[in-house]
């Protein structure tokens, strides 16, 4: 095996191990904490003991914890998440569409901001000390360090409640009941509801890309290869493009990591805008104590982070010769 293959194998093994541990932590956290999933149901007093036992058996909750754990692991391998307690539907039937709603909001936002903020950051780094650099740093520092729900609240107050330009809540008009993909996601109504949360997400993600790109350019600015390019008579923009190309790796790696985090959604953004995504569903399910849904949602979020972490690691080892693939993490 080549050194890179060995590195790859090691990282994959670590990722698999991490997934197992994370899954176990989630499972046992949910089970060992006080209160069974059905406490509320039983406490409401409408069920006879027989009925309670039947339900427990239906969900496999009468078996020993360890057996439940094994069944749970077996089901996860085939992506079977069980049934929701509250809605009596397969968990995936509930989570799938929500996950899609989250991705359709955040993936375009992330891509947009990665491109725009990186370009802006490169330009800012090239013009170090200009008002543009200071201004863009202060602005993006504000945007990325302020909790996202605060930006969202401020945007809603200005654009929905005062200027009344855009709706503040949901993904479509309350009365609308679209059927099919085109109707749901390619309608004007959808676009109209999309703009505000999309903008806030773009702004929120912008800071890190801008700073990474800026720092990358500043570090490259004094280097030998740029002197060569200058001596060759390339214009400022051409030089900037070449410096940029050579400082893109951290940006790419960061993009991969962020993409993994996207499955968690921006929980608070979704809550503020009433966006029917996975983050908002999780909050609802937690308050309803719908454990199969919670368990599956948290699992998906953890899995996405682990996978994208792996991708980022491998990417930087593959593209950057100065990262030794033989060494640990």
């Amino acid at each position, binding site marked *: 095996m080549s050194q890179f293959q060995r590195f790859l194998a090691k990282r994959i093994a670590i990722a698999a191990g*991490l997934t197992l541990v*994370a899954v176990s932590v989630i499972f046992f956290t949910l089970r060992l904490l006080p209160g069974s999933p059905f406490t509320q149901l039983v406490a409401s007093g409408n069920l006879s003991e027989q009925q309670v036992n039947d339900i427990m058996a239906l969900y496999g909750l009468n078996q020993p914890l360890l057996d439940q754990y094994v069944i749970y692991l077996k089901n996860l391998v085939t992506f079977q998440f069980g049934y929701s307690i509250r809605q009596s539907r397969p968990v995936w039937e509930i989570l799938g569409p929500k996950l899609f709603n989250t991705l359709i909001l955040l993936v375009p936002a992330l891509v947009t901001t990665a491109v725009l903020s990186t370009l802006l950051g490169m330009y800012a780094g090239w013009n170090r000390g200009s008002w543009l650099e200071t201004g863009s740093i202060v602005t993006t*520092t504000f945007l*990325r*360090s302020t909790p996202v729900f605060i930006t969202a*609240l401020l945007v809603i*107050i200005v654009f929905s409640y005062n200027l009344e330009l855009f709706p503040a809540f949901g993904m479509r008009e309350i009365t609308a009941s679209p059927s099919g993909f085109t109707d749901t996601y390619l309608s004007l109504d959808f676009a109209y509801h999309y703009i505000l949360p999309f903008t806030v997400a773009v702004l929120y993600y912008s800071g890190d890309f801008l700073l990474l790109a800026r720092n990358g350019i500043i570090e490259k600015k004094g280097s030998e290869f740029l002197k060569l390019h200058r001596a060759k008579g390339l214009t400022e923009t051409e030089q900037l493009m070449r410096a940029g190309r050579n400082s893109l790796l951290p940006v790419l790696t960061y993009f991969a990591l962020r993409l993994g985090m996207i499955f968690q959604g921006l929980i608070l953004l979704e809550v503020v805008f009433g966006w029917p995504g996975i983050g908002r569903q*999780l909050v609802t399910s937690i308050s309803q104590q719908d454990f199969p849904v919670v368990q599956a949602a948290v699992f998906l*979020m953890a899995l996405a982070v682990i996978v994208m972490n792996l991708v980022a690691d491998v990417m930087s080892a593959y593209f950057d010769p100065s990262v030794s693939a033989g060494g640990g993490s």
Partner: protein
Amino acid sequence: MSTESADSIRTRARSTVDWLVSHVQFVTTDTPALAGFTILVGFVFLGLFGPVIAPYDPIRASVQNAQGTILRLHPPTLRAPFGTTAYGKDVFSQFLAGARPTLIVGLVGGVATGGIGFLVGLVSGYFGGWVDETLMRLTDLTFSLPFMPMALLLLTFIQPNIWIITLIIAAFLWKMPARVIRSEVLSASERTFVKSARASGAGHLRTMFVHVAPNVLPIAFLYTAYGVAWSIAAQASLAFLGFGDPTTTSWGRMLRQVFASGSIRVAWWWVIPPALGIAAVTTSVFLVGRAYEEVINPEIDDQ
């Protein structure tokens, strides 16, 4: 050490002071950092004295007009300079009182985050081998468990109070400084003076804390500061979702109340103070932190 003359102690003290000055001076030369620093000083003042100077009791007292009727959802007036809430409470007083829990969670959470991260990173990077491997896998694990969902889960079962919340925040955030400090330690450990310290018979603990640690202290300070901002943001977010300490008035809880009561449609005066309070503090920490980062990162400081 006992043979050290007074002179050398004096030079050492002076060099410590020089070091401190060089590490604090940046605040005065960088305008955004200076603005951030000023805001932070104001915030600490509010945290210490806010509840004392609040004109009303933030939870019990209601604001009344001259006729004795309770002012509900009233825009800013002389009696209530920031207006009143849907329950007739004074927003200004709540804002003043809400600074304290925000400050406590921020400081304690930040110091715990920086402290744990510092120790883990130091030990991991210094010893390497299986110690490093174990600690780094643990770090990976906390990276993959999503913070907000896990925190929400834990807080549904445990009655939230600010100490529990701080604990959960620190338990999830230490990974950030740990990774960065580990890689700094790795490069410091290669340096000659560390090797010679070991060679001259210094024990592991002594080498680690006396010879390696000072090299990574600036980074540890930086991440402690970031930890403060992260803790404040995390606490406000949890409170906004309804998982805050129900017994105290915090800025996050104020925002939850205005949002959940639906008053956000009209009562901008109830939203702006806590929202800008949180935003100003977290932003300030990062503005100061960024400027400091340029002081201690020679690659960026080159120009």
